């Protein structure tokens, strides 16, 4: 087993084993969850590979492939919907030349959506990595994207 994977899993060992916690800890460190690690994870936690894959395939935030250097998430919540998140998403798709879930050429940005960022009073919202931007107009996107390396 990969030494790094082993050491991360050792830190989240619990009784009974917590698959989600282990996967989130791995993703936090590795950026994504490599499919080849599934059997190692199952072995380390003492569960079946089916249980690991079951959890892995269930949660939207668990990623099988590495995202771009920055993850852009457009909030699709109702307040953002009312305030034009559809336009923001289309603009971002056009600018980055990607569809939702894809990574732009050069690997700088991955574009995704989220169902609500809890920023409804300052909508529409775009979340880049862990930072939120509110009251965004499509015309402000260029300046915003330029801030990211």
């Amino acid at each position: 087993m990969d030494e790094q994977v082993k050491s991360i899993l050792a830190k989240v060992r619990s009784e009974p084993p917590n698959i989600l916690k282990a996967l989130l800890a791995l993703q936090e460190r590795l950026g994504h969850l490599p499919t080849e690690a599934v059997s190692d994870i199952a072995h380390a936690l003492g569960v079946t590979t089916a249980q690991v894959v079951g959890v892995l395939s269930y949660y939207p935030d668990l990623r099988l492939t590495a995202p771009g250097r920055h993850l852009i998430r457009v909030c699709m919540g109702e307040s953002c919907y009312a305030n034009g998140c559809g336009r923001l998403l289309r603009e971002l798709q056009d600018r980055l030349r990607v569809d939702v879930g894809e990574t732009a050429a050069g690997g700088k940005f991955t574009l995704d959506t989220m169902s609500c960022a809890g920023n409804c009073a300052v909508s529409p919202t775009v979340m880049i990595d862990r930072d939120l931007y509110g009251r965004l107009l499509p015309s402000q996107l260029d300046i915003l994207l330029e801030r990211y390396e």
Partner: protein
Amino acid sequence: MSTATRLYLSNDTSARAAGAGALADAWSEHPEVQLIRISSRGAFFLEPMVERDTPAGRVAWFNVTAQDLPLILSGTDGTPVRSIPFLAQQTRFTFANFGETEPLALDEYQTRGGLSGLEAALRITPDAIIEELRVSQLRGRGGAAFPVWNKWKVAQQTQADEKYVVANADEGDAGTYCDRMILEGDPFRLLEGMLICARAIGAGRGYVYCRQEYPAAAKTLRAAIQKTDEAEWLELDGEPFPIEVVEGAGSYVCGEETALLESLEGKRGVVRARPPYPAQSGLYGRPTIVSNVLTFATIPNILSRGGAWHAALGTEQSRGTIALQLGGRVKHPGLVEVPFGLSLHQVLEQFGGGMAPGSRFKAVQVGGPLGSLFPASQMDIPICYDAFAKAGAVLGHGGIVVYDHETDMVDLARHFMAFTADESCGKCTPCRIGSVRGREILERIQAGSGTIEDLSLLHDLGDTMKVASLCALGGRAPYPVLTAIEHFPAEFRAKLRT
């Protein structure tokens, strides 16, 4: 020698998204400014809002930019906070500290009455705590509105080697953000409420299941837990009461209490059939109280002021205050805490300030993505559980989203069904299959190839989902779609194939 002026600026995520973060960056090194990062008052339309002390209380400047600093330092053109109508007309109990305190200042929390609820709870028996909650008539604030005391009684009376208290901080209903505000702005209040619950039911461990979309909330809460631990009040009867923050992974249905418990156990967040209810058999099969963050945060005041105080607020079936969260095309989006009973119209006019510039009202949705739509003709409905139940609607978690004249109701209905299809846990057929078929029908209508039969098909499908789904996701998903068709039939008919 000049001394720096204390300026108060919110550190709430939405305040930062509105520009408070940039202000803090611009002013953090300024020699004339001593920046105090407080919680937000929830008047988000005014954020970033900067305040300073005066002999007559705090004075505020609204929608501040970095260039406004000379104005603020000279004390020119500020507005007394107590004369801001949006705030002055509210009845703040659970949100009384917001805008006043630093979220992690335990001494400030105590100075303003914090911990007195827990102290009161420690002086009486667990039975007496539950009796106080029965008198208060508090109902769960997460959406199900179940009497809190009843749940606690069941958990208390169920014998087990371990019991748990779980705060549901998976605030997934779009249009709601009051739990996030509590987690980021007054985290000790949540912890105090959880401790009171633990004492009442005899729990030995607590968890806060926090959605992954709220990184600042989880961070603040972990810091708050550490502070309370150091101050040695994270304990009961001399035993430590550990509270752990566990983060989710983007699944909406994990806000449903049984799916949440599955996720907390590290499994797929799939809904469990009930009974048994979590109060009897919850986390790892042990009696567990799962309550919303806002519910726990309401409890300290009930213990310190008495259940009768709480019961005196609100209406017959809806006692206390409700935290409404205004969003969408309203002029003044923000948090409104008022006693139950105001009409929807009053809330939108008095607090919402009417429509955003350039917008005309079309519909308002109450209760998140599973909430019903109301047209202009139904705005007199009082905001309380019974009136909403009678109308076949729900208050949910108190989210209110206003849609304007530009909203395409067919696309909005499709948006709702697509949401359910994305988020269904897949356990029960009506929700798993029904939401996908519903989305397909609405996509067909939107594309101009739907027929009149499709509309009746949606009704049939909706009826099936309502009665046969395992949890509120499938059971409530048809409501926004069917109310859109009911109130705006012409828009749907106009898109049908002739």
